[in-house]
């Protein structure tokens, strides 16, 4: 079959089995075409002689040229549990992901695994994931302010001055410590992350988050070495989670309490026992 449908009582996902990618998301009474891709920005390599020649590094995201979308066919395997449904995506030798929905849980979980980022070609790379939809967001998107206030961002604009947007990709990147979202008059897509990341909406209907970076040059802002994970020889593997929520537009975007579950999940302690344990009153 050309399509794989994965559903619980609250969420329905459709995958295109020819490409292996996500196609549509249905939840909260809404349906939206949402494609997810992974992309690579090549890190700019400068000589740091003056600011315009500064390399992409620990402090600066400065891509060289446009994004390269990883568009090889994704290998899928699907686990159809009773309460848990999982689609395991194998994107390439160093990018993979689990897309997961749970019964009675109104969100889609993306657990990504990226690395070690190859640098055999002597090029630093910055890996992002991008969610594309048909939502007409008209240049606006929203990011949190350290997990509290939600701030409206407008592509290629600043609130109090006219910006120089000659570096249009990084110039539109904002810190995302908890969530990023976009919306039109009807629908909203929110992404919640489990760690501080950079994020943006470079086109209407699109959201992207930076997942992992490995760079070969220092940016001359102070750290004095490249962000190259060289101590570990082959580079690091990072694993993390993103929650996606599609819902109706009503008031300001807010998922503050859910946001906490991502970085403050239950602590687990293990003991051997034959009997049931109880908590003292």
């Amino acid at each position: 079959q050309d399509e794989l449908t994965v559903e619980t009582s609250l969420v329905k996902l459709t995958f295109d089995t020819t490409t292996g990618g996500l196609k549509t998301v249905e939840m909260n009474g809404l349906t939206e075409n949402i494609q997810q891709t992974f992309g690579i920005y090549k890190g700019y390599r400068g000589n740091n002689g003056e600011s315009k020649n500064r390399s992409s590094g620990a402090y600066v995201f400065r891509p060289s040229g446009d994004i390269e979308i990883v568009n090889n066919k994704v290998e899928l395997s699907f686990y159809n549990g009773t309460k848990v449904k999982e689609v395991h995506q194998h994107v390439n030798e160093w990018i993979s992901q689990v897309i997961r929905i749970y019964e009675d849980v109104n969100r889609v979980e993306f657990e990504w695994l990226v690395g070690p980022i190859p640098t055999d070609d002597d090029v630093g790379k910055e890996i992002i994931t991008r969610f594309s939809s048909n939502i007409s967001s008209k240049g606006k998107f929203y990011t949190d302010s350290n997990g509290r206030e939600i701030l409206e961002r407008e592509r290629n604009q600043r609130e109090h001055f006219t910006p120089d947007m000659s570096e249009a990709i990084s110039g539109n990147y904002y810190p995302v410590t908890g969530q990023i979202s976009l919306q039109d008059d009807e629908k909203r897509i929110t992404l919640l992350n489990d760690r501080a990341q950079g994020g943006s909406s470079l086109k209407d209907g699109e959201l992207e988050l930076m997942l992992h970076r490995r760079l070969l040059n220092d940016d001359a802002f102070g750290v004095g070495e490249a962000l190259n994970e060289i101590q570990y020889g082959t580079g690091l593997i990072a694993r993390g989670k993103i929650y996606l929520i599609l819902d109706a537009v009503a008031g300001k975007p807010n998922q503050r309490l859910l946001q906490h579950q991502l970085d403050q999940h239950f602590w687990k302690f293990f003991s051997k026992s034959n009997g049931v344990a109880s908590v003292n009153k």
Partner: protein
Amino acid sequence: SEDLDNLSQAMGIMQHHDAVTGTEKQAVASDYDRMLFKAIVGAENSARDALRSLTNLTSGEFKSCLELNISVCTFTQDTANNVIVTLVNPLAHSSTQYVRVPAKNENYIVTDEKGREVFSEVIPVPWLVLALEHRSNDTQHELVFKASVDKIANFLIRVLPTPKNIAEDQVYFPAERS
């Protein structure tokens, strides 16, 4: 209190802007790893003493598993039979979450503090996680169940005799490789 002071001091150092943003040198990052690991392992003693007082498991081990992010737990890798999972909710409100415990592909029964069965299922760990270098490959599955926790809750995991066959639930869509 010495253990808790060490953890408190390590967490204090982690508030430095270089630690928060990852703009420290690699050797400093490794030193942060060393400090945090030592402090966390030290504070496990305090956590165990506290949980022994707060539960009826007066001689419970209350072991932490620091490799749960790669679905590995030495405490459960040989068998998760007769294992109590104590969940502590760090949030200031009750929470319901699905819990994942690394386990072998066996038929489990999970019960809550009142002995009631909690629905659980065993699912495979993605193969790229299994293929991670330095990861011990003893555990290839995770036991998943839903838990509602006010502050602390205990769940008992036991193995039932019949092995579970999960292969029939899996569908595979291979990529055409050039």
